[in-house]
Structures are given as C-alpha cells and as structure tokens.
C-alpha cells in the first residue's frame, strides 16, 4: 500500500514508507497479530528519554551476558573438581587391585617355600607382605569412612596370616615339612581365602564407587549442557525481543512523522500526527502538530488574503479598463474642440479674416505651436490607453517599406532644413513588400526620426532599413545629445525623459518611445538603443518582414 492513500493513523499502524521488504512484512505481522504490538505501544508510552530506553535495553542484555558468564565459570570449576574425584577413585581401584595382586603373590610364594623347602623364598613373602601393607595404608588414608572397618579387618587377617607364615617358615627350617604343610593347609590357606574375599569386596566397592561417580559426572555434564544451551537461547531471544520492541517503538513514530510530513508537503496542513510515545518522539510529534496548526492558520490567512487580492485586482482591472475605455472614447470629443482651435488659428494666420497685425502674429503662432503639442499629447495618451485597454488592433496589410521611409522623410525634411541638419534616408530597392500595420510602423519611424531631429542641434540624422533574412532592421542614428548609460533602460518607459529641463527645451510628450516599443512588440519585434553621451544615439528596431499573428500587449 502506498502512504498517499492511507489517512494518517493514530496508533501503532503507520503508513510504510517505500515498498515493504520481507523483514518489514514480518515485523508488521508481529506488530498486528501478536501481543508485541501492545508491548511496543507500552514501551513507547514509558515516560523516559530515548537515551534512557536504549541504555536500559543494552544494560539488561549486558547484565544477562555477565550472569551467564559467571554461571559458565562455576560449571567449569565444578567439572574440574569432579574430574579430580574421578581420578582419585580410579587410583583407589588401582591400589585395591595391587593389594589383591600382592596377596596372590604371598600365597604363591608360601606354596613355593613348602615345595622347595627353601627358607630364601620367605624373603619374597615378606616383601609382598610389605607391598600389601603399604598399599593398604595408602588406601586407608583416602578411604571413605564406611570402608575403614573392612580395611581394619583385612589388616587383622593379614597380621594373622603373616604370623602363620612365620610359623611355617620355622617348621620348614626345622625340617618338619609335613607339619608345615598341614599348617599351611589348615590354617594359612583358609586365612588367605578370607583375606582374598575381603580384598575382593574392597575392589568391588571401589569399582562401584568409581562407576557411581562417573555416572554422576556424566549426568551433571548433560544437565550443565542443557542449562547453558537453554539460557543462551533465552538470552538471545530476550535480546532480540528487546531490540525489536525498543527499535519499533522508535521506528513507528518516525514512520508516522514521515507520513505526516508528506501530507504537509502535499499542502494538507490540516493533517495531525498522533504517536503514543512520551519521549523525544512524542515531543517532536507535538511540535509537528503545532507546526501544522500554524501552517494551517497561515495558509488560511494567505488564502483569504489572496482572495481579497484577487478581488481587488479584478476591481483594479475593471477600473483600469473603464479608465482606458473612457480615454479612448474621449478621442473624438477631444479632437472636435481641438479642430476648431487649430482651424481658427490657422485661418487667422492664413489671413482669411484679413491682415494680421505684426504684433499679434507671434502670439498666434505660439497658440498654434502649443495647440499642436497638445494634440500630439492627446494622440499619444489615447494610443497608449488603447494599447493598455487591449483595444489597439494592428491592421495587417502589405505595405511598401520604401513608401514608409519616403513619407517620413518628406514629412520631416522641412524640420531638418529648419535646424540645418543633414537628413539622409537610405532603403534598398530590393526589399520586397512587407506585411504588417504600415501606418503604425510609419508612426514608429516618425517618432524615432522626430526624436533624432529634436535632440540634434547640429550634424546629421540618418535612417536606414535592411533586410536580414526574415526580418527587417530599421535604424535611426543621430549626432544629438546622447543618452547616459544608466538611463538606457528607462527611456522606453512612459513619461521618461532625461530631465525636465530637456523636456521643456525639446517639448516631447515622453510617450513616443513607449508607444513605439509597444507597436514593435505587437509586431513580434524588439527595439533597442546604442548611445554615447554627447556623441549621439542609434535606435534599432527589428520586426518580421511578414507578420503572421499579432502579439497582444
């Protein structure tokens, strides 16, 4: 499942970031289908820091490992001591067998002494007797209390047997062999048999003891093995459990936060995060909720503000449109009185009303000049307001670039002559008919050339048009006052003339360049200027030779 489709969970089951791997699926199974889920919640709910929880988990596991180590050491010590006991038991068995052997040798040597009637053999008997006694003494020292009585009895019987051997030896020395043989037959032999019986019992006991000990060692070893194995298993399981519970008590809030933050990132500021943790993650979650509330509030505020802005903007646009419409509609109303003003003045100057007294001619010409200037202003303002109201439409038709340039030259030739400026217009005859609004292009060129003539006190003004592939490049250069670098960007902005003094001197409307720029752009072209202060300026505009669609301004 993808986190986008799932609403933010409040409890243990958060949305999973990224596709879940098998280990993640196992973890999720354990969290949902086993009590581990509640355990994780419980651990998350413990009011302790993440640091404390991690420390507690690690300390618990470490302590258990130490405990197991101690237990193992104890077991090893116990096994070592049991091995020693076993060794001792083994030695005692060996000794008791030695005693048995010494007894058999004694009997053997006694029989031999009788057969050989040799006193020397008695030495051998005594030696075996000594070995018997020594070994018995050693055995007695290490013997358990219940064996001591049996050993006493063996020693008593052996003492008696040795006395008998001495008697037999004396009889042999005295040559009383028959008597000696009888003594051996009747007394010594039964005595040996008794001792042998005792010794056999002793051997049997030691052997049994050893077997018991061995069995108990084997049992103890098995027990130890089981104990150690199970405690190691329990320790591993406990460590896994602790690791799982602690880590998931941290992973779950992180995944919750992940889901929450992706909701927030999608712009759902109303989302909340709910984790059971009472640690840093809990604090983090409550901060996130606070943040989301704040974001929600801000977003609502912003939404309201933007609606308000939109409303205001619409109002403004309507007002602006109404203003522009009003201005455009005023066109005819303004021109009608201008027509009368300029007409009457011209007629006066043309002396239709009779001769004009010389002292009135200058003020009449001033009226005419200012009337014409007012008219230009009205024209420019109306053009601009129409452009801004979106009511300016280009009338696309074929026009002759040569005619446009010639008309401009013819109209402004007299002004150039008046100012004593050289005025050249060069346009190639090979430029084909162009498609566009010829009147507006003429207006643009008229504006630029008018400016060039206006701002040049001496020198020359040159107009040129070149075809550059699909475009026409118009160029108007002058030797006028030039434009400072920092002003170059502003000159196409409405009402921007260099300064008011210049405005007074050159009496421009300050709108011509702006209108020119807009017409050029409506043709899909661009306008720019290169200038050096004091040396002159060159204005360029480039428009498509054939305009196929009109750009809206």
């Amino acid at each position: 499942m993808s986190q986008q489709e799932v609403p933010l969970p409040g409890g243990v089951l958060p949305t999973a970031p990224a596709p879940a791997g098998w280990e993640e699926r196992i973890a999720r199974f354990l969290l949902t289908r086993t009590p581990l889920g509640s355990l994780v919640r419980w651990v998350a709910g413990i009011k302790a820091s993440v640091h404390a929880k991690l420390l507690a988990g690690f300390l618990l596991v470490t302590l258990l490992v130490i405990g197991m180590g101690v237990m193992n050491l104890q077991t090893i010590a116990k096994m070592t001591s049991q091995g020693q006991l076993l060794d001792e038991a083994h030695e005692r068995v060996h000794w008791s067998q030695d005693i048995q052997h010494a007894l058999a040798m004694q009997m053997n040597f006694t029989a031999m002494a009788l057969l050989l009637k040799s006193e020397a053999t008695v030495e051998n008997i005594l030696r075996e007797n000594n070995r018997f006694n020594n070994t018995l003494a050693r055995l007695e020292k290490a013997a358990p209390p219940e064996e001591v009585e049996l050993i006493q009895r063996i020693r008593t019987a052996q003492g008696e047997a040795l006395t008998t051997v001495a008697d037999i030896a004396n009889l042999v020395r005295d040559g009383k062999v028959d008597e000696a043989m009888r003594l051996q037959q009747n007394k010594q032999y039964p005595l040996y048999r008794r001792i042998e019986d005792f010794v056999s019992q002793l051997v049997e006991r030691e052997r049994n003891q050893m077997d018991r000990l061995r069995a108990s060692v084997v049992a103890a070893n098995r027990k130890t093995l089981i104990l150690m194995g199970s405690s190691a298993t329990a320790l591993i399981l406990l460590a896994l459990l602790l690791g799982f519970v602690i880590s998931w008590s941290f992973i779950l809030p992180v995944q919750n936060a992940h889901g929450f933050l992706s909701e927030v990132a999608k712009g759902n500021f109303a989302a909340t995060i709910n984790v059971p943790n009472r640690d840093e993650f809990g604090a983090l979650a409550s901060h996130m909720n606070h943040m989301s509330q704040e974001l929600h509030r801000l977003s609502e505020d912003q939404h309201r503000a933007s609606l308000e802005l939109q409303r205001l903007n619409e109002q403004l646009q309507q007002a602006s449109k109404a203003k522009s419409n009003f201005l455009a509609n005023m066109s005819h109303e303004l021109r009608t009185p201008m027509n009368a003003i300029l007409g009457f003045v011209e007629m006066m100057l043309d002396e239709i009303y009779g001769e004009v007294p010389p002292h009135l001619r200058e003020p009449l010409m001033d009226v005419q000049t200012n009337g014409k200037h007012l008219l230009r202003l009205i024209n420019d303002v109306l053009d601009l307001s129409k452009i801004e109201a979106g009511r300016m439409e280009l009338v696309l038709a074929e026009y002759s670039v040569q005619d446009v340039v010639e008309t401009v030259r013819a109209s402004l030739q007299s002004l150039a002559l008046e100012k004593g400026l050289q005025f050249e217009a060069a346009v190639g005859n090979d430029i084909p008919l162009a498609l566009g609004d010829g009147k507006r292009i003429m207006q643009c060129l008229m504006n630029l050339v008018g400016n060039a003539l206006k701002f040049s006190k001496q020198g020359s003004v040159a107009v040129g048009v070149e075809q550059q592939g699909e475009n026409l490049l118009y160029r108007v250069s002058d030797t006028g006052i030039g434009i400072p670098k920092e002003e170059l960007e502003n000159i196409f902005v409405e009402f921007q003339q260099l300064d008011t003094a210049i405005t007074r001197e050159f009496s421009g409307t300050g709108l011509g360049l702006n209108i020119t720029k807009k017409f050029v752009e409506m043709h899909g072209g661009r306008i720019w200027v290169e200038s050096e202060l004091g040396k002159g300026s060159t204005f360029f505009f480039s428009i498509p030779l054939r305009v196929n669609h009109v750009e809206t301004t």
Partner: protein
Amino acid sequence: MSDKTVLYVEDNEFNLKMVRQLLARTAYRLIEATDGEQGVATALKEVPDLILMDIQLPKLSGLDATRRLRADPKTAAIPIIVITSFALSGDDQKAKDAGATAYMAKPYSPRELLQTIRKLLPEQ
C-alpha cells in the same frame, strides 16, 4: 459664379462656423445639417455637389448616413469626404467601406480641407 453647393454635416457649432467662414470667401455655397438624419434628408432634398460628413453624429452616424446616400440613386454619385478620428483604428478603412470618396482625420487643417474640396470639386 457657378454656385457649387457643399453640405457639411457636423454637430459642433464652432466647426460649422469655421467651415462657414473658410468657404465664405470662395465660390462654394455651404448648406449645413447638425445630425445624421437631417444630413441625409438635406442631401436628398438639395442634392449638393459635395458632402463633408463628420463620423460621429447624433441620431445617425456619419458612416450610416454615407451608406444611405450611396444607396440612393439621387445621391450615389456625390463625392463625400468623411471626417474621421485619428485614434480610432481602422476609421479610414471603415469610411472607405461605407463609400467615402476621401477622408480627413480630425483635427484637419482648414487649408488642407479646402485643397481636398477643390480637388474633388473644382471651384470654377
């Protein structure tokens, strides 16, 4: 004097006055009308030799009046100079389409107006 008649349809009295004074010293006779309907009626009644028609007139616009005069055989052949407003784009085209012989942008120079009238309707 041949007494050629020029009809000026214009609602502004100063413009009327100006043209009246402009033509006073010429051989043309001026008759006047102050709205579109009156202009058409006067033209049909008087059948002038030339008509100056302002484009924006009360009751009936100058373009509509021009169209009506062109539609009537009595006035169809009379030269009509339509006075347009420079800023209203396509006015000159509209004037041509309505049947204007020539057009002049307002504000016009009285001198140029007289030249145009003389070109279309020689004084003598």
